[in-house]
């Protein structure tokens, strides 16, 4: 009998690599059966993984780092086998705030982080209630980076609240929050229901933000090297399939099914085709690299990504930076990625760490097979993070 493996996911467009690996037989080809279970919240998926009810999980990239550092409701040593998706979030505000921003001279451009940020701060008087899906999320990090670079930092004027993605539209509609950062399709759904306007894609803040990761318990992947290898190969093949533009229609059809997102495929299409509709009735705007599953080493778990996450989490939680960096680097298993994906056609970067934010445009760099294209990965304010090894 084939070995079985259960993975938990949340209904978001970026759970696609797991769905594709399951539905299109990539898992079977690797000799195992992949069962998927939908989870109601990030806390639930974390508990299920930590307590061994599931073997693998679709997780927000900061979650394994936080869990491994012992932060949050339940701690466990969790490893990141690979990155499932890069970028894919959007910032949204209430129509009233957008209106005030426009009255103050905001152009309404969807890809202008400086201008939009300044107008958001002005329109709210700098007191902003922000909704993010989880305390440890790239959403929270992007907000902190964006508004922090414009002079607003957490704890003073920034009131960050945790709201599960499917509730985000209700929360902004009910006036609980002024703005949100949420993954697709929930941002587009808030636009469709008229409770929010999208003002900025996450990719405009950081052009290459590791968004979701494939997480497993450290002990589990050490004890199950074959299954770990099969899982990584299946997900890598699924990511490559998703990176092919011709497959997008089928991908959104798969995701639309009731087992997964249970929503119309036209809403799901927006993220997959990088065509975001910021306001109801408006023509979709093309956003380069809105969400990436493949290409530019999108699935490679850079140890420097772990380090970036750890630095920010540690600073806010008041824990020692060096220790946090050590733990986070160990979480991001670029060693397993190299060992398990060699021979699948996946190209390997020459190093396992990079400067985060150093590439303003796509740039050829040395790889194991010769040359690969990385980036762009710049931050909107030009910051570069060097964690020096």
């Amino acid at each position: 009998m084939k070995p079985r493996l259960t993975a938990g996911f949340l209904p978001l467009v970026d759970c696609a690599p797991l769905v594709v690996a399951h539905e299109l037989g990539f898992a079977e080809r690797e000799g195992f059966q992949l069962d998927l279970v939908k989870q109601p919240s990030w806390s639930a998926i974390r508990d299920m993984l930590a307590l061994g009810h599931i073997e693998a999980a679709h997780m927000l990239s900061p979650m394994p780092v936080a869990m491994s550092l012992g932060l949050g409701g339940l701690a466990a040593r969790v490893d990141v086998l690979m990155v499932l998706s890069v970028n894919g979030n959007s910032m949204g505000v209430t129509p009233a705030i957008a209106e005030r921003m426009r009255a103050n001279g905001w152009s309404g451009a969807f890809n202008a982080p400086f201008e939009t940020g300044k107008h958001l701060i002005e329109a709210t008087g700098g007191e902003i209630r922000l909704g993010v899906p989880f305390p440890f999320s790239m959403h929270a990090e992007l907000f902190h980076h964006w508004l922090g670079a414009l002079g607003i930092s957490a704890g003073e004027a920034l009131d960050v609240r945790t709201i599960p993605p499917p509730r985000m539209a209700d929360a902004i509609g009910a006036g609980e929050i002024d703005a949100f950062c949420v993954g697709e399709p929930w941002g587009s759904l808030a636009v469709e229901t008229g409770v929010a306007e999208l003002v900025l894609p996450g990719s405009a803040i950081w052009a290459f933000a590791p968004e979701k990761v494939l997480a497993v318990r450290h002990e589990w992947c050490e004890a199950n090297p074959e299954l770990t290898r099969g899982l990584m190969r299946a997900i890598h093949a699924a990511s490559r399939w998703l990176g092919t533009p011709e497959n997008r229609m089928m991908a959104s059809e798969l995701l639309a099914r009731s087992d997964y997102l249970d929503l119309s495929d036209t809403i799901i299409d927006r993220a997959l085709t990088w065509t975001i509709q910021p306001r109801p009735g408006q023509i979709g705007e093309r956003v380069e690299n809105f969400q990436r599953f493949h290409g530019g080493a999108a699935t490679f778990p850079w140890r420097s990504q772990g380090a970036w996450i750890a630095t920010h989490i540690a600073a806010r939680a008041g824990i020692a930076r060096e220790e946090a960096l050590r733990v986070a680097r160990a979480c991001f298993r670029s060693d397993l990625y190299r060992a398990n994906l060699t021979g699948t056609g996946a190209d390997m970067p020459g190093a396992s760490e990079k400067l985060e934010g150093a590439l303003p445009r796509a740039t050829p760099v040395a790889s194991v097979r010769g040359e690969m294209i990385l980036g762009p990965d710049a931050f909107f304010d030009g910051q570069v993070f060097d964690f020096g090894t």
Partner: protein
Amino acid sequence: MAARRGAAYIRPVSSKLRITVVDADPERAHMIVDGLCEAGDFEVTVLGDDTGLARKLADLAPDVVLIDLANPSRDTLEQLSVATGANSRPVAMFVDRSDPEMTRAAIQAGLSAYVVDGLKKERIKPVIDAAITRFHMLSQMRSELNAAKAALAERKMIERAKGLLIQARGISEDQAYALLRKTAMDQGKKVAEVAQALITAAELLK
């Protein structure tokens, strides 16, 4: 950080344990509260509306929060377990892990319990045990109800499919059922699935 968590929440140990049950269904919440009251002398509050959950909980300052594992608002609760630098939290709650076996049993029952940092295991145990018992009862009731609903829906569907066959082919009710059953056996499907397919097809051809 430990000092801050501890200092954030001080109350005399002798006072009654304060429990908050988060559940949107009043009947379910009622059953859970009943179970808790049988188990001891607690101060129990029910929060039925998810709006502004974090703020309400901060005002109530409970020692224990009980919530359905499947409730998406758990992530909002999670905020309370993160003590961030500048924002001092009135409560620092953690998923209960004083007893790994109990935690496992709670998860299996679909219960998620958050407890205030530093609360003694002996004080939590009766609460969690009582809640686990109730959650088991509730999930059994829920699955029985779902099974009953599903059976009813299947029967209705088969009745409708029989009706369609009787009309279209002029056969008797028994013959119609036999035809559905034979088709199901030939295709390795359930009778209800064949009935469903027939109804869908008939609607398309209308």
